[in-house]
């Protein structure tokens, strides 16, 4: 007889996170054990977020679209250094090269590149920070000195 329905991963992870936080942590005495326990509960919450969405794929697709959107303007207004930035297959490499080129060759094209890439990269950064907030909070709680 097999189980007709298994519990889902999210429920198991959430159960572990709660157990660590509410039952195990209050019992721990040593400084390092409390710190590790706090971070362990936060890691489980972070892992739950990873299960809910393939963020890597989403970020890559968004960035690839933004880089593609820049191609016509760079082909039209940019010199050889600018055009070389778009040869990379990876949108992360291409976006990196574009932002470096914008630092080295200030002007309207550099401003345009930043105007397109910065809002997207900032939004991705903010979303990642929100996902990692339980880890940040646990880390900060233990950085007060001893």
């Amino acid at each position, binding site marked *: 007889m097999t189980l007709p329905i298994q519990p889902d991963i999210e429920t198991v992870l959430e159960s572990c996170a709660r157990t660590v936080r509410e039952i195990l942590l209050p019992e721990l005495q040593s400084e390092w054990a409390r710190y590790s326990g706090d971070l362990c509960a936060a890691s489980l919450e972070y892992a739950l977020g990873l299960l809910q969405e393939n963020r890597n794929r989403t970020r890559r697709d968004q960035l690839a679209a933004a880089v593609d959107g820049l191609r016509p303007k760079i082909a039209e207004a940019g010199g050889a250094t600018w055009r070389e930035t778009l040869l990379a297959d990876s949108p992360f490499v291409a976006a990196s090269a574009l932002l470096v080129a*914008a630092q080295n060759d200030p002007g309207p094209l550099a401003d345009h590149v930043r105007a397109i890439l910065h809002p997207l990269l900032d939004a991705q*950064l903010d979303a990642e920070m929100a996902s990692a907030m339980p880890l940040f909070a646990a880390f900060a709680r233990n950085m007060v000195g001893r």
Partner: protein
Amino acid sequence: MALEAQSEALASYLEERLGLPAPCRIVEASRMAMGQSRAMYRLTLQHPREPGSADLQCEHLVVRVEQWGMLGSDGHDEVRIMRSLCAARYPVARVLVDEPSGALLGQPFFVMEFIEGTSVFVRESLDEYVRTLDRLHRMDPVEAGLDFLPLPEGPRGAALAQVERWYDVYRSSLLGEPSPLVEEAAQWLRNRAPESERIGIVHGDPGPGNYLHREGRLVCVTDWEFTHLGDPEEDWAYLIAMRGMGVMTEDRWIDTLRDLVGVHLDRGRLRYWKALNLFKGACLDQTALRIYVDRRNLAPNLLAIGTAVHLSALKRLANVIRTS
């Protein structure tokens, strides 16, 4: 790594290296939550007062174990720096044993004296700390025995050497793809590297949490793994923008440093060094994620540093460089 598993071997090793009467026994070993680049243990080592004596005494020690290159540093220079500064009568814990091979604990480690004190910040300890940091900056590196550290080359060398040092650390720990915001920041820092007015000994991680005080007096400056020869403004910016950020506002910090030690900070240069320190943080945090993902060390603090702490530094870095 749990130190308990190697307790007997470590006790025998310390017995021999410290020349203590046998038998030595570790009666207490607790991991300290402070410090991320090294695993730190408080150790109580018990041994006979004299050979053959039943009368026992204890040594209180701190063991500092490397973590697979965590945060882009190793203990080799750290030990030399601590020993040199100790000899120059700077307030540093005495290093008693250096074990660089990794044969005993799986990672290199060193043992230092335990100094009674606390790193919990109190305002009363700050003035003496600032004066002590300023004293470090004004020490002659040659007289202090630190002339083995590389001297930055050229007027912009102090800044550029740090940019490239941390950029290399970042690139060597990269997981697949580069971060466009880190790459942009590296180029911003290269293009705007300021000329240094003087070169001195830079602590590299100064501020509350990295010194011990007792009864209002500073007893010891800690955490020497990032120390190098460079521009002292790098340290002041770190103090203001990182460890001392919650102590007072930037304006008050600038006034305090001027009044206490006569350091006049230019806001444009301060902004550069703040950006460099945030860049350094973002880059060295990447090493934690690499070690975690490679499963060399699965401690959850590495996940926190490699994700949340890295992202936080990157966010602040982006804000600083865009306010030009």
